[in-house]
C-alpha cells in the first residue's frame, strides 16, 4: 500500500487531535494551529487526489485497526472523496480568514479558544462523514457535527443567536433522531452496518420483496432526517436566523460546509447503501423533487422580500439547497452529477457572499438594512468586488461557477425521460430570474453612489483594502476559486463522474 493512502486516516486524526490540543492553548495559538492543520489537510487531500487520478484503482478501503471490515471500522477513499475534502479545507480556511476581524469583536476574548476547538472538530467530523464506509460511524460524526454547529452559532452571545441556536438544535436533533431510527431499522433488516454489505442485503431484500413497507419508511426517515439537517424547503425555518445573526465565519461555514456534509452523506446512502436503481423507483424521490421545486421558488421569493442583506443571502441558501435536491429528485446520473457540482459551487460562492457582505455592512456603520448599503461598493472596494463576483456566479453568468452548474441542471432536466422534465426546466428558469432580481438589485444598490455629505452625516467611512490584508486575501482567493470552478469545470466534472461511478 502506498503511503499516500494513509491520507484519509491522517486527515481525520490530525483535525480531531488539533481540536483536543486547542483546549489547553490560548486563543492565538489555537487559531494558528487550526489554520496550519486545515492547510496541511488540504494539501494532503490534494496529494491524494492527484494519486487517485493517476492510479487506476478507482477507490480503496482502509482498515481502521487490526480487524477487517465487517468486524472493525473501515474508511474508503476515491477521487470524489479527495476532491470534496480538498474543497472543504480550502473553503474552511478562507471562511475563517475572512471572518477573523469579526471574531475578535464578537466573541468574548476568554472564550475564543473554544471557537477553534469547535472548528477543528467540525472539520474532523466533516472529513469522517466524507470518508466513512460504515453507517454507524457516520451517525457518531453527525452528532459531533450537530453540536459543533450549535456552538458556532451560539458563540456570538446576543439574544437572537441564542434563539437561533436553540431552534437549530431542536430541528437538528429531530433530524438526527429520524436518521438514527432509519439506521436502526436498516440494521434490523440487513444485519449489517458496513455500507457495502448493507447494499448486498438490500438488493436481496428488494428482489425477494420482503420488507417492502419498512424499507419505504426507512428511506423516508433517512431522507427527511438529512433534509431537515440540510434545510430543504419546508424544514428551513431555522436557517435565516442561524445564518443571519451568527458571527460571519460561522455563517460561512454553516452554509457552505455543514449542510453539504449532510448532503454528501445522503449521496453516499443513495449510492452505497440503498442503490440508485431502488431509490429512483421509490416514491420518496417524488416528494424530494416537489419539496425542492417549492424551495427553489419560495426561497428566492423570501430573499426578494427580505430587507436585511445577511438574511437575504441566508434565504438564497434555501433556494440553492432546493437546486441540489432537485438534482437528486430527477433520479438520473446526470442529475446527481449536477447536484454534486452545485454543492461545490455553492460552498465556494455562498461563503464568499457572506464574507463580502460583512465588509459592506462594516463600511455602512454596521447597519445591515438594504438601503443603508448604498454605495458601499465604493467605500469598501474589495468587499464590493467579492459581492459582485458572488452574485453573478449565483445568478449564472458564464465564466463563473454558477453558470456551469445551471447548465448541468438544464442538461440533466432535458435528458430526463419522465414527466419531471417540464417542471424542472420551468422552475429552473423562473428561479434563475428571481435569483437575478435579488442579487442584481443588491449589486446595483452597492454601486449606486451615495452623496458625500450624506456619507459624512451618517458617519460612514471608507475602508481601504490595506486596513485588513487577511480579509482582502481571503476574498481574492475566493474569487479565484470561483473562476477556477467556472472556467475549468471539465476536469472537475470528470472527477465527479468517475467518483460517482466508483460509488456504485
Amino acid at each position: 500500500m502506498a503511503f499516500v493512502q494513509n491520507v484519509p486516516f491522517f486527515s481525520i486524526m490530525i483535525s480531531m487531535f488539533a481540536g483536543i490540543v486547542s483546549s489547553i492553548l490560548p486563543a492565538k495559538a489555537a487559531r494558528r494551529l487550526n489554520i496550519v492543520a486545515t492547510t496541511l489537510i488540504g494539501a494532503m487531500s490534494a496529494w491524494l487526489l492527484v494519486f487517485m487520478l493517476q492510479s487506476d484503482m478507482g477507490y480503496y478501503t482502509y482498515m481502521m485497526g487490526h480487524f477487517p471490515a465487517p468486524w472493525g471500522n473501515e474508511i474508503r477513499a476515491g477521487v470524489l472523496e479527495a476532491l470534496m475534502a480538498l474543497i472543504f479545507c480550502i473553503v474552511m480556511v478562507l471562511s475563517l480568514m475572512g471572518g477573523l476581524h469579526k471574531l475578535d469583536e464578537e466573541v468574548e476574548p476568554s472564550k475564543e479558544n473554544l471557537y477553534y476547538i469547535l472548528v477543528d472538530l467540525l472539520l474532523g467530523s466533516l472529513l469522517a462523514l466524507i470518508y466513512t464506509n460504515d453507517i454507524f460511524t457516520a451517525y457518531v460524526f453527525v452528532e459531533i457535527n450537530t453540536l459543533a454547529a450549535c456552538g458556532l452559532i451560539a458563540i456570538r452571545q446576543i439574544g437572537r443567536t441564542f434563539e437561533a441556536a436553540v431552534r437549530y438544535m431542536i430541528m437538528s436533533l429531530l433530524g438526527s433522531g429520524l436518521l438514527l431510527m432509519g439506521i436502526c431499522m436498516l440494521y434490523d433488516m440487513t444485519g449489517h452496518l458496513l455500507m457495502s454489505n448493507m447494499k448486498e442485503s438490500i438488493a436481496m431484500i428488494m428482489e425477494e420483496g420482503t420488507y417492502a413497507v419498512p424499507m419505504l419508511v426507512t428511506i423516508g426517515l433517512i431522507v427527511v432526517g438529512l433534509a431537515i439537517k440540510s434545510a430543504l424547503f419546508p424544514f428551513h425555518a431555522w436557517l435565516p436566523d442561524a445564518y443571519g445573526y451568527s458571527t460571519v465565519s460561522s455563517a460561512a461555514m454553516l452554509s457552505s460546509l455543514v449542510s453539504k456534509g449532510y448532503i454528501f452523506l445522503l449521496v453516499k446512502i443513495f449510492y452505497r447503501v440503498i442503490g440508485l436503481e431502488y431509490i429512483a423507483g421509490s416514491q420518496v424521490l417524488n416528494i424530494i423533487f416537489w419539496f425542492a421545486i417549492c424551495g427553489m421558488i419560495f426561497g428566492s421569493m423570501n430573499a426578494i422580500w427580505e430587507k436585511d442583506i445577511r438574511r437575504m443571502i441566508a434565504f438564497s441558501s434555501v433556494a440553492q439547497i432546493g437546486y441540489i435536491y432537485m438534482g437528486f429528485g430527477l433520479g438520473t446520473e446526470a442529475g446527481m452529477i449536477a447536484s454534486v457540482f452545485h454543492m461545490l459551487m455553492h460552498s465556494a460562492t455562498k461563503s464568499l457572499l457572506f464574507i463580502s457582505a460583512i465588509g459592506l455592512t462594516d463600511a455602512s456603520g454596521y447597519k445591515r438594512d438594504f438601503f443603508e448599503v448604498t454605495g458601499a461598493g465604493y467605500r469598501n472596494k474589495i468587499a464590493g468586488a467579492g459581492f459582485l463576483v458572488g452574485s453573478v456566479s449565483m445568478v449564472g453568468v458564464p465564466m463563473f461557477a454558477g453558470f456551469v452548474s445551471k447548465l448541468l441542471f438544464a442538461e440533466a432536466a432535458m435528458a430526463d425521460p419522465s414527466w419531471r422534465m417540464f417542471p424542472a426546466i420551468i422552475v429552473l428558469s423562473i428561479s434563475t430570474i428571481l435569483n437575478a432580481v435579488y442579487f442584481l438589485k443588491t449589486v446595483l444598490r452597492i454601486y449606486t453612489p451615495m452623496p458625500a455629505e450624506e456619507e459624512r452625516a451618517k458617519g460612514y467611512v471608507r475602508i481601504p483594502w490595506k486596513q485588513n490584508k487577511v480579509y482582502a486575501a481571503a476574498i481574492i482567493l475566493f474569487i479565484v476559486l470561483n473562476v477556477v470552478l467556472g472556467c475549468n469545470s471539465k476536469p472537475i466534472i470528470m472527477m465527479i463522474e468517475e467518483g460517482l461511478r466508483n460509488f456504485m
Partner: protein
Amino acid sequence: MSRQIPQDELNKKKSYRFKQWMKGEVDQYVGIMEMQRQEEVGTSENEVKKHKKDQEKLFADIYDKEHNWVYKAFFRFYKLAAVVCCIALIVMLVVTVSYLPPVGNPDNPAHNEVVEKYIEDGMQDTGAVNIVAGMILDYRAFDTFGESNVLFIATVVVMLLMRDDKKKKGEDSADMNYEPGFDKILQQVTFILFPLIMIFGIYVVVNGHLSPGGGFSGGAIMGAGLILYLNAFGVEKISRFFTENTHKYICFAALSFYCLAKSYSFFTGANHLESIISTGVPGMIVSAGLIFPLNICVGLVVACTMYSFYTLFRKGGY
C-alpha cells in the same frame, strides 16, 4: 454520684445539644448555614411602567388573537397540525415495527457472521473477557473515539454558553461562600460514602475488560461521587483537588492519549505492520492490550464531563 458540670461545658456536649434539638429549643443550623439573600430586581417605577407598556404594545400589535384573525387561525392550525403530525408519525412507526423481524428470533438478519465472530473469537482477538469492551474499544474503537469526542464537544458547548467569565473579576466571586455548605447529615454521609463511591467507580473502570462495566459506566459513578462531594463540602474544599484547570488537563491528557494510542494502532493495522501492543493473558488485570488504558481514558472523560455539566449549570463556573 454524678458531678454537676458547668453550663459552658454542658453547652459543648453533643448529647446536651441533641436533647435541646429534640425539645425544639434550639435550631442547630441558625447562624451556621448561610444562604444568599434574594435581592429585588431593579424596580424603579418608570421601568416597570415602560416594561408593561412595551409588553402591551407587543401583544396589541402582534399577538392580538382577538382581532387578528390570521394569528387566531394560525395558532389553531398550528396546534392541530402538531397533534396530527405526531399521531401520524407514531402510527407510521408502530406499523413499520410490526413488519420488522420479531425480537429474539434466531433467524433474524442481525444474527450473522459479524455477531458470531464477536462472540466466538472476541476473547482471543482482543484479550478482553468482557465482549462488549472488546467490541467498543478494539473492534470498533474508531466509533468510540468519536463518542468520547461527542462528550468533549458537549462540554465545550456548555462551557461557552454557561461559563460566566465576568464573575471571576467582579465582586460576585464572594457568591461562592454563600451556599448551604454545612449540612452535618449530608457531610457525615458523604464522609463515609465518597471514598466508597470513588473506589467502586475506579473498580468498574479498571475491571472494564474483565467484568460488566467499563469507562462509560464507571466514569458516570465517579462523576456522581464528585457531585455529591461538591454538594456536601462546597466549592472551596473541592477546589483543593479539582478545579477548571484539573478538568482541562485531565480531559486533554485522556483524549490525546486515546487519539495517539489508537492512531498508532490504526496505522499499524491498516499497513499490516507489527504492533508492539500484545493482548496479554485474558483474565489478568493488565491485559487486553489498549482496552485497559483506553477504559481509564474514557472513564476520566465521562467523570469530568458529568461534573463540569453540574458545576456549569449550577453556578456558571467551577
